[in-house]
């Protein structure tokens, strides 16, 4: 008969094995899909999309809160995105700075009575502004009472009259052809398989050189926290999301950059204002809706091109707040849709991607911490087989390095945005330091997130991240 220790040991062994095997699966799937994507896009001229006769109209919805320092440049950057049928809706979420007046003055905006259906309930809109300058005729600036990012996005969705909408963070830097690339999966819809949303790769803009709202040179960040996150984003976007997209199991599209079918989002009543993981929650709800109500084949697409550049937390406190929020958002979404867990009604999503998220994203830090405590107890009771322990320890370290090196390799092979020996040398060092330094911290942040959610009952707090606005002059050497 199995002893208590045997049961615990076997549990950890099986859990760990499945986790590592899933990484191998992710590596294989993503490499296949990346290779296909690169080949199919090599001779496709994305600018020819502009000449297409049947194209969906798109609204770019950018919520902004106290973006006084950079709002003019950010709007200019959004207006310069290439797409023939696009409107830009910037939603000022009750900012208390001078951004409203700045935009009015710079873009010759006047308050207009712009009709829209309040299909999704939101905080009151105080005013809608349009420019008297014909050059900005596709710009709509909305001033509303503060209600959070999800609420601001919902206002944008209500106001939009387009087929699709691109939800972005106003302070992100978007590649000029990003929309042309993002819309392609919607045009590639085959048969009865509807594309309901598309996500793109988000890359880290810290230390990059920026001119007139464009990334002119990609640099590996100087800040240590940002360095860790570069590696993390490589794995998450280049490998993880690509693989899940191929398996049609992608559950999250980054809130910083995602293209959605507007009518479908309206049908599910927009973003959930009660959670901080509104991006994750929306995708799950959309998928659920397609499964349960529409009952049609669908796909959540993913574009591996780096199309959106964002500033990431560059100090301990901001990072802690961000990760805490991400964890709370995940837990909230998982609990809201717990009926999907291993539910055959939801097909692959119910059996594969959703349980994976629960077991290996939410539970992983908890199980890892439990394992660590268990390990300490075993040391105290002298029940450790040192030889096996060392073998497992070396395996975990080497596998983590292998997975990171694989992600970096694919990044170089396909995009080659970070160049030179220095980058490679730094990234190898960072990958090693990550295991002993950054990973435990992430674990700590995730535990704090669980603590905040369950014990402090903090479900909606956003925390604060101090951003250094993308001031062009500062970033150009």
């Amino acid at each position: 008969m199995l002893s208590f220790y045997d049961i615990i040991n076997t549990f950890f062994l099986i859990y760990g094995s499945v986790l590592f095997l899933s990484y191998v699966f992710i590596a294989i799937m993503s490499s296949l899909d990346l290779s296909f994507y690169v080949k199919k896009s090599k001779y496709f001229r994305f600018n020819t999309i502009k000449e297409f006769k049947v194209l969906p109209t798109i609204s770019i919805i950018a919520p902004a809160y106290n973006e006084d320092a950079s709002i003019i440049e950010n709007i200019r950057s959004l207006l310069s995105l290439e797409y023939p049928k696009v409107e830009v809706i910037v939603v000022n979420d009750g900012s208390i700075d001078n951004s409203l007046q700045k935009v009015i003055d710079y873009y010759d905006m006047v308050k207009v009575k712009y009709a829209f259906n309040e299909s999704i309930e939101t905080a009151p809109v105080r005013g809608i502004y349009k420019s008297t300058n014909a050059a900005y005729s596709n710009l709509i600036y909305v001033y509303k009472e503060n209600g959070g990012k999800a609420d601001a996005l919902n206002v944008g969705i209500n106001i939009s009259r387009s087929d699709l909408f691109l939800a972005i963070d106003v302070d992100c830097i978007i590649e000029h052809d990003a929309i042309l690339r993002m819309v392609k999966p919607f045009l590639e819809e085959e048969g009865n398989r509807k594309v309901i949303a598309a996500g793109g790769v988000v890359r880290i803009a810290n230390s990059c050189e920026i001119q007139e709202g464009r990334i002119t040179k990609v640099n590996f960040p100087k800040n240590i926290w940002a360095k860790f996150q570069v590696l993390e984003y490589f794995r998450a976007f280049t490998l993880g999301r690509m693989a899940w997209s191929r398996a049609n199991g992608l559950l999250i599209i980054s809130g910083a950059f995602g293209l959605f079918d507007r009518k479908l989002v309206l049908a599910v009543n927009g973003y959930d204002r009660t959670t901080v993981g509104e991006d994750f929650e929306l995708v799950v709800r959309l998928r659920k809706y397609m499964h349960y109500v529409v009952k049609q084949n669908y796909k959540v697409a993913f574009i591996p091109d780096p199309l959106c550049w964002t500033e990431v937390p560059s100090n301990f406190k901001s990072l802690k707040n961000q990760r805490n929020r991400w964890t709370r958002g995940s837990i909230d979404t998982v609990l809201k849709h717990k009926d999907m867990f291993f539910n055959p009604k939801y097909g692959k999503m119910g059996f594969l991607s959703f349980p994976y998220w629960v077991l290996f994203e939410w539970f992983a830090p908890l199980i890892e911490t439990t394992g660590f405590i268990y390990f300490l107890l075993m040391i105290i009771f002298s029940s450790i087989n040192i030889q096996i322990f060392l073998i497992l320890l070396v395996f975990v370290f080497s596998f983590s390095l292998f997975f990171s090196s694989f992600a970096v390799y694919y990044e170089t092979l396909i995009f080659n945005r970070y160049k030179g020996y220095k980058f490679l040398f730094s990234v190898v060092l960072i990958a090693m330091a990550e295991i002993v330094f950054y990973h435990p911290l992430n674990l700590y942040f995730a535990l704090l997130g669980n603590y905040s959610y369950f014990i402090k009952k903090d479900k909606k707090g956003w925390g604060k991240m101090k951003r250094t606005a993308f001031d062009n002059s500062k970033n150009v050497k």
Partner: protein
Amino acid sequence: MRYTFLEYLINFLLRLFWLIIAIILLLGFYVFYHDETELFGFTFINPYYEFIREMPFWVYIVLCSTVFSVLSIFVFISFNLYYGIQKTRVENIRAKYYKYFSYLLTNYFLSDFTKNEDFKQKLLFKIKSHLKTRHQRLAFLDSFLRIQENVAVNLSDDFEHLMQNLKIQKRIESLIYNVDFDDKILAMKLLSYIHNHSSDKQIIKYSNSNNFALRTEAYASLIRLMEKDEHLINFIGVNHTLSILDINIIVNAVLKNHKMRIDYQALLASQNPRKIMVGLLLAKHRYRRGKGNTILIINFIGNPILEFNRLAWDALLALVPEEELIDIIIDRFENEAEDVKILILQNFSKLESKRFYDFLMRIIAHQPLFVKIEAMKLIFKSDFDTLTVLDDFQNEELKSAYEEVSCLYMNN
């Protein structure tokens, strides 16, 4: 065929190499788990057997995975270093040669100055000396494609002549049989632009491929290659549903092809809904205004499939003079979807008949908000004074629509 053979040989050797690596790894896994292994007459004695023998099998698997991971780290770091340098070098070469060839080819194709035979010979020499490597050749071909895709002029004869002189035609023809489908796409584009029919069968085969990227390019290439557009119906979407991307690419290729003999009847009578969409789009852009033969399109007005209905209205609004459309609009408007109603009103430019004005006023009273707005815009464009007629509102929606239209018009 020499190039194709070489390509396949390299590909085969590469696969063989990875297969050998996999076999070595599996062999390693096997021999290190046993005390002694005899293979092809050689006896391998495992020096670590004593260490491994005492391990449970799962620990041995973990140990092997560790060795594999460590080796992989070195492999990927080395690859990274190699490909990083190589990719940067290739990007630089491609960019440099792309600029160089674009300059030379633009002169060659589009400047009268280069019609001089002496100049042509010099130019040929300049190009020829830079076509030694694959990257140089691809940069050259890509430069031509970009020029051809950006200008309306047909450069095929000049380019074919150039290729004959440069003796690279065979290489292009061989690209279509390459293992990598990006090379096949490039070859199809080039061959179709120069109207080279040597690989038509292969392109037709690709038009039925399960790879949608290859298939889409095959459709466009066949359109460029065919003598008459009336054959279009025979090869598009035969075994696969056409995507919106396919439809757009097909329509653009036909429009750029400048051939006028499109068999609209066959397209519009097709059982395949996506072919009907192609037909409706081509009808909009290719029918001559006032030709009168719009009956085929009118058949799709009111079609329960929204896409057909929308495209049919779009074509009709582009082809038929507005005054002739008023009756159809008044007759059918009520039954249309909101999107279509908006489309109709957005495409109407002027308001001349009293009947149509009354009809718009009815719309303003009863239709959904965004239809009201479009109807108001149409009225205001023609007769600003009617604003006063609409100035007294009980209905919130009407008020909201009025405010938007009047506000936007006054501010602009």
